[in-house]
């Protein structure tokens, strides 16, 4: 059963004619050409396919596009603005918080949601927020450092404006 779905992805309206049983992850990657969202375990056990749905982190491997119509979907492609990296992306690059990089898009988006909610999180709050994102390279320390650095910079930016 194919259905026409109208999705709002990174502020753009996108339409696709897809089998209803294709997951949001598959449609983002295969029909909309947005391969920044990674497919990992595909069973809800790793977090690398995380996208934001109305600002909340969810797993695109377990969501159907028909269930996300009318929601704002944000993928990692939607983070940079006007060619400038998001402060989280900048901090991850500077501190080496990405090694193989496979978990990075999911972690960046989960951290984006955290900082929107809590601009100055404690380390424990960062850990709790990222508890659904596995990373097999970094040992997490650099990721936690990068989220804290980005929070600091975003706070300063906020203070300046």
């Amino acid at each position, binding site marked *: 059963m194919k259905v026409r779905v109208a999705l709002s992805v990174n502020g753009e309206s996108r339409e696709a004619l897809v089998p209803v049983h294709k997951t949001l992850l598959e449609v983002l990657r295969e029909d909309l050409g947005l391969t920044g969202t990674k497919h990992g375990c595909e069973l809800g056990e790793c977090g690398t396919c995380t996208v934001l749905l109305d600002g909340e982190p969810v797993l695109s491997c377990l*969501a159907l596009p028909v269930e996300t119509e009318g929601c704002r979907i944000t993928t990692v492609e939607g983070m940079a603005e006007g060619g400038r990296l998001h402060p989280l992306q900048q901090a991850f690059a500077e501190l080496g918080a990405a090694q193989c990089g496979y978990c990075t898009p999911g972690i960046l988006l989960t951290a984006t949601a955290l900082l929107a909610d809590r601009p100055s999180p404690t380390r424990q709050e960062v850990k709790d927020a990222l508890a659904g994102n596995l990373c097999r390279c970094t040992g997490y320390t650099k990721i936690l450092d990068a989220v804290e650095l980005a929070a600091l910079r975003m706070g300063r930016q906020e203070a300046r404006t």
Partner: protein
Amino acid sequence: MIRLPPFTYLAPGTVDAAARLMAEHGRDAMLVAGGTDLYPNMKRRQFEPKVLVGLRGIRELRGVRGSASGWTIGAATTLSAVTAHPGIARDFPALATAAGLVSSPQLQNMGTIGGNVCVDTRCNYYNQSYEWRKAIGFCMKKDGDICLVAPGSSRCWAVSSSDTAPVLWALGARVRLIGAGGERTVPMPALYRDDGIEYLAKRPDEVVADILLPPAEGWRSAYLKLRRRGSFDFPVLGVAVAARMDGDIVRDARIVLGAVASLPRPAERAAAALVGQRVTRELIARVADLAAGPAKPLDNTDFTHPYRKKMTRVFVARALAAVAGLQNGSAASEEVA
């Protein structure tokens, strides 16, 4: 890529319409809310429904409402929303804790309390890929005819793996079910059967619409969860304790164990031993021994079953101490081994 098998997706606007669609499509149809349990199982071909009836668009299924007669939680309320609700956190801390310990933050944003109450039972021989199950020989829960945990058994021993169900049971919750033939409200124990396959006692067309909680009125509660990692993992032991205290005397108590059987398992003799008593360390030790009695874990989840049995006693003692205000040391709501 592990893809979902094909199906038709129906999105009714009301619970009544959902129940009618379920009745119409019979065994071919399944209900889906958050999808966090069903979709992985469908990808592993544990379920292959031809029709999915989606509950996500049904407004009346969402939200937490308080009144003089207690709290009503719409079944499609997300686990995050349950944890974050200030009234629930104040009146039923065990429920807020349990919902906040389900899997990972992302799955709590997607998964619903109704879905967690109805979550599929689990087993080391069942929650595997199709190829794995085929290679070892299918079990009776899907595609086979024997139990690989207890080959001589005529029944399936898959484990109830809900965090919220033992808590709701201990809190005296009821469930409102809406079916094609009308609605009924049943106490939590009446929702379950002691069978790993047919673990729910509701008809397939019945939709869990609401969870009804009585007023907290002096009840205190605690939930403790055992799992290997601090995230993602299902419980391999859950202990829910609720007690109504009059000073330091227990007036009423319920202890319900999760992940030790195919349904939440009440420790009734243990709870009865608390009533009318002043809670002391000695009483807690005796009650914890009694509570471990009904826990009969089998060798079909993570950790060894003797360890899970032993930890039942330890967790019941800790949960009782927390409820009675006798806690010393760690107040952590889970143990990661």
